[in-house]
């Protein structure tokens, strides 16, 4: 069928590109488009607005009338009554003013507060080159040493303990390097770990007492039971976060291993650890772990909790990373293999960077959950912020105070968790921009 009077079309010149039409902007347009676009939208907007106003209206006087200077809850209420207000019309922030040091540091000796603060600064300093790639890579050495310095600052005692711990790692590393000349890389790693463990179990304490005898290098020791408050939550939470990521990566890789033994060990570990509530593992840490350790080793409760929380988190992280590994196209593995890269080279440079990038939101989600889960240690008698708050409530001066303490604690946790969430977003955006 031919269409009459319609000649064939041939374009003789290519159209030039034009600028896009100017989009209407402005706040009124935004409001109309996003808040008032339909009747349903208008109703929802009004409801939300009403709720916001009610909340502010209820909360604002409580905050604004807050009393910051008082000795006790009773004193607080007197001050409120003096200005003609009822006992619930104003907050009693004086409790935070009075007890902030306990909420932050527990019963850590007050003249030593500088140590946890310095440890925190060192920790953040060590974290910076890991979090921000633009910093010089040489700073990573500092990142590796900072955790040991933090340990020494927090617990005190002989500096030879962290030094010996570093020594053990160096020994294991050297052993792996030497053994890999004769053995396959997997066997060499196993051998190196075994030699490192032997050093820790047999040589460690004698080395420390020997070195301390020759060249004492001690600062005042602080027992774990004096740890408390937000510092305890941060110590447990941040240690577990830092330790669980590498462990989780190894577990995820082990679960994908071609070697059945390694694979099944990883599967059993992950499933058993995930299948039991954290609180049970914490009780295990409190009660049982000492039975499994060689007699005579008294192992600090906080350290035991850190180990348990780390293992628990690692199992979750491993599963998250396994998801990332599974999401990678098979071609990436084959591309790396076909170039002759070894398993570890391919894993480190091709597979993990991409798998971790996929898993970032889920990993950070795990970390945030883990950090808040540290409050569970209150059940095994450790004075985390909640435990300290309860202790404060039990004193005669502050008996009956709730909201102010928990608001403060909530705020502390929120700051840390929100920072993690923002960093996660920053990293996602940065990596997306890097390679679409």
């Amino acid at each position, binding site marked *: 069928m031919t269409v009459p009077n319609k000649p064939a079309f041939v374009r003789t010149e290519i159209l030039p590109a034009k600028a896009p039409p100017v989009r209407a902007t402005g706040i009124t347009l935004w409001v109309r488009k996003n808040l008032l676009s339909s009747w349903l939208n208008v109703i929802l907007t009004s409801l939300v607005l009403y709720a916001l106003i009610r909340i502010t209206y209820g909360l604002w006087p409580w905050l604004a009338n807050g009393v910051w200077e008082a000795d006790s809850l009773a004193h607080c209420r007197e001050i409120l009554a003096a200005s003609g207000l009822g006992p619930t019309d104003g907050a009693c922030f004086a409790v935070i003013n009075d007890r902030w040091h306990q909420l932050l540091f527990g019963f850590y000796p007050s003249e030593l507060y500088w140590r946890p603060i310095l440890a925190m600064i060192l920790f953040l300093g060590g974290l910076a080159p890991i979090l921000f790639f633009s910093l010089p890579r040489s700073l990573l050495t500092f990142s590796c040493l900072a955790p040991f310095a933090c340990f020494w600052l927090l617990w005190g005692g002989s500096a030879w303990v962290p030094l010996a711990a570093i020594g053990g790692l160096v020994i294991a590393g050297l052993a792996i390097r030497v053994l890999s000349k004769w053995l396959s890389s997997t066997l060499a790693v196993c051998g190196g770990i075994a030699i490192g463990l032997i050093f820790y179990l047999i040589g460690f304490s004698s080395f420390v007492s020997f070195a301390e005898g020759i060249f004492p290098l001690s600062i005042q020791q602080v027992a774990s039971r004096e740890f408390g408050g937000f510092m305890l939550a941060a110590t447990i939470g941040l240690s577990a976060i830092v330790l669980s990521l590498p462990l989780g990566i190894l577990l995820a890789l082990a679960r994908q291993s071609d070697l059945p033994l390694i694979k099944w060990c990883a599967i059993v570990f992950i499933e058993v650890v995930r299948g039991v509530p954290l609180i049970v593992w914490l009780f295990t840490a409190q009660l049982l772990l000492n039975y499994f350790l060689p007699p005579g080793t008294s192992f600090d409760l906080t350290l035991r909790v850190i180990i348990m929380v780390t293992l628990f988190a690692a199992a979750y992280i491993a599963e998250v990373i396994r998801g990332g590994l599974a999401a990678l196209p098979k*071609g990436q593995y084959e591309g790396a*293999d*076909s170039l*002759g*890269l070894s398993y570890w080279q391919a894993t480190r440079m091709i597979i993990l960077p991409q798998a971790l990038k996929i898993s970032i939101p889920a990993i950070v989600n795990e970390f945030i959950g883990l950090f808040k889960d540290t409050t569970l240690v209150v059940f095994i008698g450790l004075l985390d912020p909640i435990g300290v708050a309860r202790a404060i409530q039990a004193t005669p001066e502050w008996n009956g105070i709730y909201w102010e303490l928990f608001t403060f604690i909530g705020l502390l946790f929120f700051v840390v968790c929100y920072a993690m969430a923002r960093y996660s977003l920053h990293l996602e955006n940065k990596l997306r921009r890097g390679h679409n």
Partner: protein
Amino acid sequence: MTDVSQVLVASGAIDPQPSVEIVGMNKWYGNYHALKDIDLVVAEGERLVVCGPSGSGKSTMIRCINGLEDYQEGSIHVDGTLLSSDVKDIDKVRSDVGMVFQHFNLFPHLSILENCVLAPTWVRKMPQKEAKDIAMHFLERVKIPDQAHKYPGQLSGGQQQRVAIARSLCMQPRIMLFDEPTSALDPEMIKEVLDTMITLAEDGMTMICVTHEMGFARQAADRVIFMDAGQIIEENAPDQFFDDPQSPRTKMFLNQILGH
């Protein structure tokens, strides 16, 4: 070397050390017999084109040559190295054998230059500077030196495939394997990739190409192999292969791909 190949060497039937030598190779996926009694010798500098319908085992066969797939019977020697389960041997073969995939398999998180520099620096332990020079040399040869700092996702399919070829060449391989390198490309981009491959063939690279580009086979190949149902059905010089196919299966296949 296996007994069979020793006999063949003694009788002068093949070169003392062919690039690739497959003898009596069989492969199963579970119970499925994927490759049946494959015997294939590729001389140094030879250009071989492997064609056949999908599922005929042609990709599986060349993937066996650099150990991406294992095999259960027979032997594969690459430059005299037996491919077995020994990881060190497999890694050695892989570093000497370049492979180009249908879906390019570039590393999306690394720039073009980093893609090319990675293996030479880590596998060949080449200094960074030298590896970069070599990478730029090969990127120039595939005509995309100006894209070196972009990421794979920013290039067209044809450009990505040429980068993939350059990345393999940076390892200065003795053999190049091509696994349907143009099948995922738009018609406009097929030519640029084929041109690159023809240049490579003219330079005397040993090449084994699984491809349906019959024009390329005629122009660049020394020999064409037709596979079906996991076996080599026919093997001939390109002109005879296309003009006078012997097996009815080959005739049917050629009719289907050339006669529409």
